[in-house]
């Protein structure tokens, strides 16, 4: 129980600080004390008990009912012993008991160990002792009593809350570990399936006839499954809030004719930047599909250049001669200029399209990282 240690340490610190306060009070209010030396002896007992409890409460196995009840009894005893050392007149006039704020020690301990109700019960016990001490001036003791009860309630409530959060966290970690194990097993299965499909494709080609058609279909499914596996959904969560691994979006574009190549590490962009980039890439690939002959292949390369992300899309189609690109934009067919160039400019980046006759087309997109928004 990780949170327990700091709580118990805080209670020990509270006791020590209150002890110092009690010592200071006895010194300052010495005129209220009829048996001054005895008062100091009581402070000595308080100090010894503080040391004992600071040590005892540190280990969970020592926090027994015996310890907690003794804590309450001893503290109550020390509180009541004020009657033996202070002038009755001073007590009635509202002098602080020799235990001062130190008396809250067991209330806090009971609250952390046994919860809110236990905190309140121990508070009431001590409040009762306080009333007994100054029986005809209830109003003075009331303040202290109320504070004690509130402290018991609050601390008890908070301790339970922290315990719940911790066990929820524990469950979440277990779920995550189980998830990772499943993923590992799934990877093995995927690899086996892909291998079998590849084998079927090979055998089909060899056998010819109908088997060749089956092999071809197996090959198609192999490519599709491999592309699907490549787009790891969990990498969406790789970044901080609002950041997305743009690789996951771009590997979706992979197909039999489109190869997507990325680094091994996540490439993070803000969610809107990532979406816009992915749309620009899709637009570039759509251009290939529309303007190039069937079977033209395209390659998408993603690079993380630190202050910006660079995406290159190259196809091995017939290419465009220089003027055609400008022509198309000017003629109002804004497909290219808005979908790609416009998007990049909106993100604070740039798009560069080069093409040559017979040399295919190369689209280079640069997306700046955070800091350079619209």
């Amino acid at each position: 129980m990780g949170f327990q240690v700091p709580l118990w340490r805080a209670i020990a610190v509270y006791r020590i600080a209150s002890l110092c306060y009690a010592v200071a009070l006895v010194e300052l209010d010495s005129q209220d004390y009829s048996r001054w030396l005895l008062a100091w002896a009581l402070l000595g007992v308080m100090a010894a008990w503080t040391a004992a409890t600071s040590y005892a409460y540190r280990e969970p196995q020592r926090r027994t009912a015996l310890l907690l009840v003794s804590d309450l009894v001893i503290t109550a005893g020390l509180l009541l012993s004020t009657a033996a050392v202070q002038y009755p007149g001073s007590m009635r006039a509202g002098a602080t008991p020799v235990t001062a704020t130190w008396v809250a020690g067991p209330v806090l301990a009971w609250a952390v160990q046994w919860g809110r109700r236990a905190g309140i019960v121990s508070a009431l016990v001590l409040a009762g002792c306080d009333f007994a001490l100054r029986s005809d001036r209830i109003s003075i003791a009331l303040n202290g009593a109320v504070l004690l009860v509130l402290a018991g309630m609050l601390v008890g409530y908070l301790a339970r809350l922290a315990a719940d959060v911790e066990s929820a966290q524990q469950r979440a970690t277990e779920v995550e570990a189980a998830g990772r194990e499943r993923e590992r097993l799934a990877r093995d299965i995927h690899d086996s399936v892909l291998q079998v499909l590849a084998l079927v494709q090979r055998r089909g080609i060899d056998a010819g006839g109908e088997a060749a058609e089956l092999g071809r279909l197996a090959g198609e499914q192999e490519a599709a499954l491999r592309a699907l596996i490549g787009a790891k959904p969990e990498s969406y969560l790789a970044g901080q809030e609002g950041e997305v691994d743009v690789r996951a979006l771009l590997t979706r574009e992979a197909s039999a004719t489109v190869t997507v190549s990325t680094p091994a590490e996540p490439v993070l962009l803000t969610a809107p930047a990532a979406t816009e980039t992915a749309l620009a890439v899709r637009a570039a690939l759509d251009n290939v599909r529309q303007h190039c002959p069937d079977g033209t292949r395209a390659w998408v390369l993603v690079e993380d250049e630190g202050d910006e992300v660079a995406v290159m899309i190259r196809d091995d189609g017939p290419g465009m001669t220089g003027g055609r690109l400008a022509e198309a934009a000017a003629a109002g067919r804004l497909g290219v200029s808005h979908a790609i160039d416009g998007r990049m400019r909106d993100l604070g980046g740039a798009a560069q399209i080069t093409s040559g006759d017979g040399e295919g087309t190369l689209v280079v997109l640069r997306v700046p990282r955070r800091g350079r928004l619209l």
Partner: protein
Amino acid sequence: MWREAVARDLGSAGFEVVASVGDGEQAVRVAGAVRPDVVVLDLQMPGISGVDTIHGLLTAYPGARVLVLSASGEQQDVLEAIKAGAVGYLLKSAGRDEFLDAVRRTAAGEAVFTAGLAALVLGEYRRIAAGPSAGGAPELTVRETEILRMVATGQSYRQIAERLVLSHRTVQNHVQNTLNKLHLHNRVELVRYAIDHGLDTGRG
């Protein structure tokens, strides 16, 4: 079954298959004895990992050139294999002709890259550059970066040679060099790790 198919293909293409084993430990054991020029390594093997197998192979017979195959594409495990000393990578679903060509090229000293592998290598250099580089992190020259980018966008070594007005051999050398630097860096890192963790056997 996969292994038999591959061995058969290699045999009928004129290659001499000196050994065909089913797990990494066995491979390391026979490597010293059979001294293979090319090792075709399936990353999806039972037993010790691909990386450990490669370390073992290269220790047993440093002259081996390792071509790794995987089913699910260019992911972290392929990059680790390359860093550990492999010189080429191919998808299992690449056709027979492409496979045989890859083996031929590997034997001839060429680094067989896919577009995906080039992107992984580029990313790895970037990762090293961005990380803690106590003493000489390897860097890519401008030329090497350009060539790797061209490989990553689907161009063959021949196309690259034409476009950059270089010889085919020069392009190959550049690519092989990017791997050599990674291999060296990896070896240095391993030694440093061993020393840091007191695994240096010299200190007992």
